[in-house]
């Protein structure tokens, strides 16, 4: 039981990474990964919403009529997202301006509805919460990788600020400002970085499979 949960938790990082292997929720991944700050803010928000949504869906799974389950999930998810949007607006206004419309768009992030339908509606509360944490961290992990590559290549600087106070936590200049490739902060860079990481993950999974076959 515990082992199964751990396996499920682990699979979210590479093998079944919701972003690079399953291609779920990539709209926000491409759009907001220009800086590490945005990636962390978005990742943590999605993880919290995912855990809570999975927990509530799982709690209600026995009394939800099968025919209207999708509308029920959507109402649960949009209530959670709206609450987090209002909380972020109140306590972390800089994050709110940076992420903008992508916070309300978490409602239509396929990962959350996908996990509710595929996992939380069939499993116990604790299993669902752990699944939400695992997949949410896998998503955050994907966002962090993308944003680090794009921010370093595009601006040469890697920094992190505390969204609640606006204080700088750290800032390092990795590439001299004269040698940055600014195209990585734009749309082209997003598609290109994503394509290369997705190809790497698919090559990694293919290699594991051939090893397993031997």
């Amino acid at each position, binding site marked *: 039981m515990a082992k199964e949960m751990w396996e499920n938790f682990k699979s979210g990082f590479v093998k079944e990474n919701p972003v690079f292997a399953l291609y779920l929720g990539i709209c926000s991944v491409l759009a907001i990964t220009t800086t590490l700050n945005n990636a962390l803010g978005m990742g943590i928000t999605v993880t919290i919403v995912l855990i809570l949504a999975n927990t509530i869906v799982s709690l209600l799974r026995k009394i939800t009529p099968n025919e209207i389950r999708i509308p029920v999930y*959507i109402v649960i998810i949009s209530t959670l997202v709206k609450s987090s949007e209002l909380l972020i607006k109140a306590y972390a206004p800089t994050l709110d301006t940076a992420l903008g419309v992508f916070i309300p768009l978490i*409602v239509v992030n396929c990962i959350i509805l996908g996990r509710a339908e595929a996992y939380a509606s069939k499993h116990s509360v604790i299993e669902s919460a752990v699944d939400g944490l695992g997949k949410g961290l896998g998503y955050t992990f994907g966002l962090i990788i993308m944003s680090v590559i794009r921010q370093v290549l595009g601006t040469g600087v890697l920094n992190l600020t505390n969204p609640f106070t606006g204080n700088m936590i750290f800032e390092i200049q990795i590439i001299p400002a004269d040698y940055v490739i600014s195209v990585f902060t734009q749309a*082209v860079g*997003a*598609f290109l970085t994503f394509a290369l990481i997705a*190809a790497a993950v698919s090559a990694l999974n293919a290699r594991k499979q051939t090893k397993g076959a031997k």
Partner: protein
Amino acid sequence: MENLLTLAISAILINNIVLSQFLGICPFLGVSRKKDSAIGMGLAVIFVIVGASILSYLLYHLVLDPLDIEYMNLISFILVIASFVQFTEMFIKKYSPSLYKSLGIYLPLITTNCAVLYVALANITSGYNFVEMITYSIAVPVGFMLVLIIFSYIRERLDIAPVPKAFKGNPVALIVAALMAIAFSGLAGLV
């Protein structure tokens, strides 16, 4: 009038919903393998966005705003969109079963196409009046359909091209999208 034209051109070409706003990528990758389903999907999305935008615009200005419950916007809009997609699905199933088959799972998934919710929200936050709202709600999905059709033509050629194994499928499609984004960013000087 000139204003509306600028709004439309910028929504179709310059701030293209897929290539510069990154919305609606799931169906963009999912149903772009064949030209016919790309056209069908494009038309379905135009229909859903225009219908859902008008309904949510009226809902916001006639109900939510007078009652001072604007914070219900997200929840009510997504319900409007979900029911509208359900309606479209029933409609297509009845009148074009072949299109219904070729769109498959992506038809109910229009609900989670972020472009739909984005347009409904943007109509409110940008403060458009009714005519501007209609123009914007038509222009955005037209841009989506344009890119989807171009992309499906490229992908049909891609099927017979020798692609490295790891890049097969979605990764190479994303590289194509990156190249298209470069091409589209050249149009930025139009308006």
